[in-house]
């Protein structure tokens, strides 16, 4: 009888099987990590805003406290986005002619809100509460990153559930003294481990409860 396949078919067949396995493996690898990729989560990607507001300038440059604008961060689930009049308290005095501030003045003039692009946007089924985190010694910086270094605001973390769980599993790694919460340059001490344990106990953080579903999902 005649050969059906050429000699080369021998190594070709084996090689193709290996390749197929490799391809499948790598495709799976990509799929599993797709939403861990920073770009997909828009992490470290500055968002354009109607007004190029610079946290760097206002926080680092002028030393304005977070709470001056985000008034309800200690009282409510929602940290609060400042109303136009908050901007105008200063900008009715200074930079009154600056063209980049025109949208702000316009908003104040015709009573139309400024539409900011949301940077930190959790899914609708996640119920995050700022007040409790702040009061239990989780610094702004821990989640929002070095905001005082951000000319335009961007997401410093993925906000993936695994990222939340990392802390909810063991807050001792990230907790800091209450008075340091709004400090942008807080450096965790060498003995964070022991300090963390102490603070968790002191602030009565119910670690056992933190990974309960209903803590964040209702």
């Amino acid at each position: 009888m005649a050969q059906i396949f050429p000699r080369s078919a021998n190594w070709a067949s084996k090689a193709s099987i290996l390749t197929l396995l490799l391809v499948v493996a790598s495709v799976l690898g990509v799929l599993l990590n797709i939403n861990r990729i920073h770009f997909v989560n828009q992490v470290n990607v500055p968002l354009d805003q109607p007004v190029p507001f610079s946290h760097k300038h206002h926080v680092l440059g002028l030393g304005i406290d977070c709470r001056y604008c985000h008034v309800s961060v200690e009282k409510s689930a929602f940290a609060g986005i400042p109303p136009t009049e908050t901007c105008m308290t200063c900008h009715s005095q200074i930079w009154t002619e600056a063209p980049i501030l025109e949208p702000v003045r316009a908003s104040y003039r015709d009573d139309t809100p400024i539409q900011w692009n949301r940077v930190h946007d959790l899914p609708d089924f996640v119920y995050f509460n700022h007040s409790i985190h702040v009061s239990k010694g989780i610094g702004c910086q821990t989640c929002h990153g070095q905001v005082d270094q951000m000319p335009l605001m961007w997401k410093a973390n993925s906000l993936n559930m695994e990222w939340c769980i990392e802390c909810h599993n063991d807050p001792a790694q990230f907790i800091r003294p209450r008075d340091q919460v709004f400090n942008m340059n807080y450096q965790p001490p060498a003995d964070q481990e022991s300090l963390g344990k102490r603070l968790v106990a002191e602030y009565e953080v119910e670690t056992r409860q933190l990974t309960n579903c209903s803590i964040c999902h209702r």
Partner: protein
Amino acid sequence: MHHEEESPYHGVMAQFDNPDDLVAAAKATYAAGYRKLDAYSPLPVHGLADAIGYKRTRLPWLVFCMGLLGAIAGYSLCYWVSVIDYPMNIGGRPFHSGPSFIPVTFEVTILFSAMTAAFGMLIANGLPQPYHPVFNVENFARASSDLFFLCIEAEDEKFDLDETTRFLQSLNPQEVSHVEN
């Protein structure tokens, strides 16, 4: 088949029409001191492989080990997930709900060992191997339906084209043919 360059022939092949003649011939050939042999049949023939110097495979052990590995993998997955990584109070059951982990463990065990058995066999047989010199033999197409072949390969020290051919003819086959590479 890296001997191609040296010899134009893969070997010499004798054709029989029933398994018993083949087994007899195989025994004789082995007795005659030939070692690089192979025999081809459309159905498994008992004693044939032994007749031409078959060595027991360690496949069963491999299967057993992989099965064991599967069992460990299965149970530890359940345990690690339910007790260590994200323990949850599910219906008031203990974190380590041993009995509930058994079915998964069992299935993984079977899966691992079965896959090992199947693919181990193919690999041990060097399959897939679409091209092989024996296919050059004219009647070999019937090796998969009703003919039986005994092949002395060129790699054998005792191999000598005419000598070997003559020897095979002495086993009164239906036919003897040269297997080109």
